[in-house]
């Protein structure tokens, strides 16, 4: 049984009553206990929507979400609240995600106050102190307000709040993209250490290839609300099959500034998210696209034992 299982999930937002935004289109994913599944994609690819759907912070239009075998969508409000102790989220904007009127100790302690109200306050306090230490914050930070902390410290508070109830799943919604480069590595290291220590499964959402390569066990590449390629990250990075994945990897800047950049592989702009796409979502931008890409539905299909690609000619040489 996988930790988190999303099956054929779609999400459509209605904008102004007339336009529909197709944020997610028939996405299926699993996260296993203790592993990191990285979801990578450009802005507007639906990856943040996916993270919120996984925790039922928003409701999917279609599809099902199972957490540790429990159908999350069937849960009543009270049951869902209870389950939140086990499935947590860390946000992209550390400051905005912390209540500016609460002290760090109260922010970190709130999940305990909610989920273990019968635990003596002293025990909860010592648990909070331990977690604050665990995420690398000095004890005196506990009395500070979020506004008095640096970005990295704020994100550590966000991490502490997420792990205080010992969850088995954490959704990380671009947890480092708003941080300085130097702080970013520390936070990623902390997240990796915590995962080893606590055995949590991570759904790691990011647009940054370098970060994803560093943290992930498996990877799901998203484009325009669909997963276009999944597989173990080493193999996807070494030998990408989908033209979009190839373009994405090729677009990552090399470490050596003198190295020549490959020519851009995709032409044009992504199709508007308000358009319902039949066929391949990349059609029109794809260097190897042909007529049958729009004539038939192009869905994620197994490529080999542990990989899947949504392309009718995966690994086409022209791409």
């Amino acid at each position, binding site marked *: 049984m996988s930790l988190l299982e999303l099956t054929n999930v779609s999400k459509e937002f209605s904008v102004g009553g007339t336009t529909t935004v197709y944020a997610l289109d028939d996405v299926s994913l699993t996260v296993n206990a203790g592993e990191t599944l990285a979801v990578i994609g450009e802005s507007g690819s639906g990856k943040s929507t996916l993270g919120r759907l996984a925790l039922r912070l928003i409701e999917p239009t279609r599809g099902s979400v199972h957490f540790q075998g429990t159908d999350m969508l069937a849960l009543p409000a009270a049951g869902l609240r209870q389950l939140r102790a086990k499935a947590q989220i860390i946000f992209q*904007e550390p400051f905005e995600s912390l209540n500016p*009127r609460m002290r760090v100790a109260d922010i970190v302690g709130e999940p305990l106050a909610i989920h273990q109200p019968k635990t003596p306050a002293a025990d909860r306090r010592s648990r909070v102190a331990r977690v604050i230490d665990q995420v690398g914050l000095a004890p005196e930070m506990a009395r500070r307000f979020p*506004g008095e902390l640096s970005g990295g410290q704020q994100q550590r508070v966000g991490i502490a709040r997420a792990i205080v109830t010992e969850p088995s799943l954490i959704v990380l919604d671009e947890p480092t993209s708003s941080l300085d480069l130097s702080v970013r590595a520390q936070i990623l290291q902390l997240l990796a250490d915590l995962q080893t220590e606590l055995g949590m499964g991570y759904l790691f959402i990011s647009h940054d290839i370098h970060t994803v390569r560093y943290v992930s066990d498996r990877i799901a590449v998203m484009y325009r609300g669909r997963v276009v390629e999944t597989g173990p990250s080493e193999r996807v990075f070494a030998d990408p099959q989908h033209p979009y994945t190839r373009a994405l990897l090729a677009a990552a800047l090399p470490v050596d500034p003198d190295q020549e950049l490959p020519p851009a592989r995709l032409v044009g702009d992504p199709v508007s998210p308000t358009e319902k796409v039949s066929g391949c979502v990349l059609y029109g931008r794809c260097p190897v696209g042909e007529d049958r890409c729009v004539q038939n539905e192009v869905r994620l299909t197994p490529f080999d034992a542990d990989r899947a690609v949504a392309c009718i000619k995966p690994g086409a040489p022209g791409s």
Partner: protein
Amino acid sequence: MTETLAADPTTVTAPKGRKPRRGRRRLRLWVPSGILAGMLAAAYLAPLPYDPAEPLPDTLAAPDGEHWMGTDKFGIDVFSRLVASAGVDIPLALAGMLISLVVGVLLGLAALHRGPWGERVVRALDVFQAFPLLVLAIALVALMGNNIENVVVAIAIINVPRFVRLVRSEGLTIRESRYVEAAHAIGATGPRVMFRHVLPNMTGIILAQASLAVAHSIVVIASLSFLGIGINAADASWGAMIQTGAQNMTTGQWWVSVFPGLAIFLTVLCFNAISDELQDSFGRARQR
């Protein structure tokens, strides 16, 4: 884009040296608060030079060393009555504001509930507020009878809409904030989100509004007293004092009306200054 940003002075961060220092900010809050506290303390504790309700034979005496602000047509010492009135007018306004604050905040939070009712409450307030509030206060007091309790109730009723409106509009913004989403994500219940996350983040602006409401109430109470339908005429009240002196204005005895007028002015000014300062410091805290 950068050019327009630079040209717009509001988006440019003020240089450090020009920011008001913490001490000066404190002063802006504590000076008006101190004046108001002094007025209340004087009304309740200070020995008045004359009885504020006892007529003296010396009617319409001009201000001098004997009567600092003169006497009115009944021979009552204006200064004594002015000070005593502070102990009536300000507490009445505060009490009315407190009731409207509690009722307004609760109604405002209730109006945040999703669904058609929130919108309906706001529509109802629009109708309510389209009515001139002073006229409404007069009508209420006239209907219910003019005693102190009814003045307080009238003050409370006309001030409720501003709190409902404020709490609802602020709440709609805060509800969309990331930390409220985070609160939901850790499994917080609706009431917990409301009272631990939404409400504490609007206390500053509610207090600022409360101070404004008191200032407004002072004027309404004075208006009611001036019209003779507020507090019992025998009780000291600035509005009634202005009314008493109104006839004497034309004959040159300005002091009977002008001093209570100045007292109202000073009180309203103080409450407005407190509101301004609260709003400012709240804005700064939010930007941080």
